[in-house]
């Protein structure tokens, strides 16, 4: 009767055998019910595959929903804070959506695939929220997480690599654009999107074509060109912080799963003012966000660089050295390309402004002995790191 195998903890990805063959370290972690490598080979080689050559990552665990029907645009426009009526067919937009209190439920990307036909990618499971939000709209919402074979191909040689793999038309594909094409006899959708802040693409095919898609890339790797390399989540974590991208559920608690009052966050508190559009018609959370906008800011997720070379793992942030505790580090990394410690920190504001003298208290170990160190923090606006190749069309070859 039952098709549930209780002995297998995770759902197999359609790329399972390929990924296993390339994962040297057996360093796995759960991601939305799938097993993903944290590190496939070595962290440094994977990080530099993203920043210097061409990285490949399995996007199967990312939640994907297909939203179709006459009210698809109206439904999505009510759901997210951004104005989606301006999103043309063939374009992608980064979005967040909130509950009625204006607290963020999740973030993701909306793909406008065709008239009244969208794909919404999300960090967390959203079917419940989407269906609740769809009451009164003539839309159909299908979860297609399992039905799509998707890979992310990122890095400076990604354009050259994919072109060499036989994908045509990439030279005119702009950032956030979608290209429908055919390669090696199967249909492939390519979007110029990613989570690395670098030149990169995401490739989407039917699940049945997973092997074809995988082989398209990795036969190319076998030629020794472009240093194509499977990467794990640890390298992705480093580059997404460099790019200043947020992770719902890690950098802040998502609204739907929040138990304690005031432990969730609004788009403003996450520095996402730029995608909250009050000029569009009503959207969920609008009134609460309007009210919040009228008040002085009480806290923000700030981008901080820190002096020294000790990453502020789990650190508190203080106002003044050894001063009053005023925040906490939510994500941090040593940036090999900037040679600097970076952090995203949830920081309390004073009279609508950040405290002017921020310090982190950092604990670290040397030969099992614990040390503590204070590091001055500097607030950074915009991305920590970006490169013109991300936006250049046509892209540079490497």
């Amino acid at each position: 009767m039952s098709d549930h195998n209780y002995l297998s903890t995770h759902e197999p990805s359609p790329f399972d055998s390929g990924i296993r063959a390339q994962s040297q370290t057996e360093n796995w972690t759960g991601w939305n019910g799938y097993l993903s490598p944290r590190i496939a080979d070595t962290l440094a080689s994977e990080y530099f595959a993203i920043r210097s050559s061409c990285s490949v990552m399995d996007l199967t665990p990312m939640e994907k929903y297909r939203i179709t029907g006459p009210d698809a645009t109206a439904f999505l426009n009510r759901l997210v804070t951004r104005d989606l009526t301006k999103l043309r067919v063939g374009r992608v937009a980064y979005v967040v959506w909130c509950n009625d209190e204006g607290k963020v439920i999740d973030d993701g990307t909306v793909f406008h695939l065709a008239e009244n036909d969208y794909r919404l990618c999300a960090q967390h499971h959203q079917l419940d929220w989407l269906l609740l939000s769809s009451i009164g709209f003539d839309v159909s919402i299908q979860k297609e997480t399992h039905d799509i074979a998707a890979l992310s191909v990122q890095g400076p040689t990604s354009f050259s690599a994919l072109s060499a793999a036989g994908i045509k038309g990439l030279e005119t594909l702009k950032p956030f654009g979608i290209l429908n094409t055919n390669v090696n006899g199967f249909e492939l959708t390519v979007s110029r999107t990613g989570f690395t802040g670098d030149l990169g693409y995401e490739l989407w095919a039917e699940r049945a074509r997973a092997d074809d898609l995988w082989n398209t890339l990795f036969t190319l790797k076998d030629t020794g060109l472009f240093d194509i390399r499977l990467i794990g989540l640890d390298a992705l974590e480093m580059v997404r912080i460099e790019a200043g991208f947020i992770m719902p559920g890690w950098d802040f608690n998502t609204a739907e799963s929040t138990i304690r009052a005031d432990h969730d966050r609004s788009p403003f508190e996450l520095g996402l003012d730029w995608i909250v559009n009050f000029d569009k018609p009503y959207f969920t959370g609008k009134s609460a966000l309007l009210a919040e906008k009228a008040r002085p800011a009480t806290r923000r997720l700030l981008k901080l660089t820190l002096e020294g070379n000790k990453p502020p793992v789990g650190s508190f942030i203080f106002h003044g050295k050894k001063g009053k505790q005023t925040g906490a580090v939510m994500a941090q990394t040593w940036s090999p390309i900037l040679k600097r410690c970076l952090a995203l920190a949830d920081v309390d504001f004073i009279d609508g402004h950040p405290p002017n003298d921020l310090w982190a208290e950092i604990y670290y170990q040397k030969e099992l002995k614990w040390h503590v160190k204070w590091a001055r923090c500097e607030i950074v606006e915009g991305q920590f790191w970006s490169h013109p190749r991300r936006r250049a069309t046509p892209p540079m070859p490497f």
Partner: protein
Amino acid sequence: MTITKNYDAIIIGAGHNGLTNAAFLAKAGLDVLVLEKNAHIGGATVSRELYDGWKYSNCSYVCSLFRPEIYQALDLGRHGLEVVPLQGGVTFKQNGDYFGSYHHHDIQRREIARHSQRDADAVVRFNADLMKWCRLIRGFLLRTPPDPGTFRPRDAMEFAYLLKKFYELSESQLYEFIRFFTMSIAEYLEEYFESDVILAHYSGGSIIGTGLGVYSPGTAYVLLHHAMGDVDGSIGSWGFARGGMGSVSKALASAFCAHGGSIRTDAEVTNINVSNQRATGVTLKNGETLRAKIVVSNLDAKRTFLNVMHSEDLPGDVVKRAKNFKIRGSSGKLNIALDAMPEFPALPPGSPLTLGHLHFSDTLERLERAYDDWKEDRWSSDPYTDTVIPTQFDPTMAPPGKHMMSVFVQYCPVEPEGGWTDAKRDAFGKTVLDQLAEYSPNFYDVLLHAEIRTPRELEAEVGLTEGNIFQGELTLDQLLFNRPFPGYAQYRGPVKNMYMCSSSTHPGGGVMGAPGANAAREILRDLNKSDTTPEDFGDD
């Protein structure tokens, strides 16, 4: 002239709350005597050997509500207590399928998604909401409820604490909380889930021990009463006390005796002696009189005020409220010795699901029908049962390879038409066994012995009035500062030097120990003794 000893405190009843209370008083240096009518201690928290080689958890059978603070303060681990967390759990469907509970988050998600993709996502919202209420209510378990009718500074402080707790909720959460307290479990769950079996699976805990059905207002709260406990910080988890629930009482008794207390069994109290509106001691069934500076009752509120106290010693209001106290019995229990593990062919071979609670009600409709029978004073022809087989990992309760099965049954009437007879009791048991055999074809082959208990047996043995397992229903009118009665929620009785420490007081029934500890705190305060009871660990 004989000088009779004057105890510092006499506790009537060696239930787990009586023993908890006694242990904290003895720890504070008081000379304490516990009197128990039965030959064994524990009340509804007991393990007994009624079939050679088998130990039954005769009444309560799983442990989660028991306060870890009490466990730590009385060092119960050193006194032999061990609570092992349960795994698994399953609701069998009539069509041969099932819905399983797995501990691993991802496996559980996939199992829910097998029944409804949407429900697999909704469970996040459900768990977060339930945890909000759990977190709130857990903060009150080891506290004396405030009396909103007085203006003493301490009550004002406590009330402020309560309000603060509430206002930590956002405005919309506060509304939701009030709805939660007043809704039926069925309607509450339907705001989250769509799958019939998932709705049934989650609603079972809400009717246990109640005179209510899944569609009766107020049942949503009972869910909380079953979800607010924890095993080692895992909120909502249940565990088995190694050796059965009697191990809880045994460890408490051992701690109590180590602090110098003594217990007398076969010592039924017939009267709390009162003179000048002060309790002075008790009289036993054998006519013996024992003196004590204070008397604490571990009996339910009805039994305390209507059986072992005289109306002339009590305010009329208390007598009236005791008479009206809602304590309808609605549960039965089967304890079963098995020659081997029963088979459940619906489950894949080696499935871990039998390690937890087994259920056989797969729709809300069937649950409501089971309730309909009870309203007509019949036992449910298709009952809701909560079955566990602890011998799968407790080696102490049956001979090797053999098993002990505990079957809690909802609903069973206090009195069927024409009253209980042994034949009717056995017919009730047969209904339950037949239901099990429907899902386990070898069940009758491995059945060796069954102890069948209806509210009649529960009342006769444990003294639970009408067999109500919680010593009074868990409805809003009988909770917090209304438990047992408005004005008497702070463990002090209506006459001086008399106290209550049973499940009839806040925070209510279940093997929790909190009423016993809270009562001890109030007693020690009145006696100007230093407080031996523990403070709440706190959630944050």
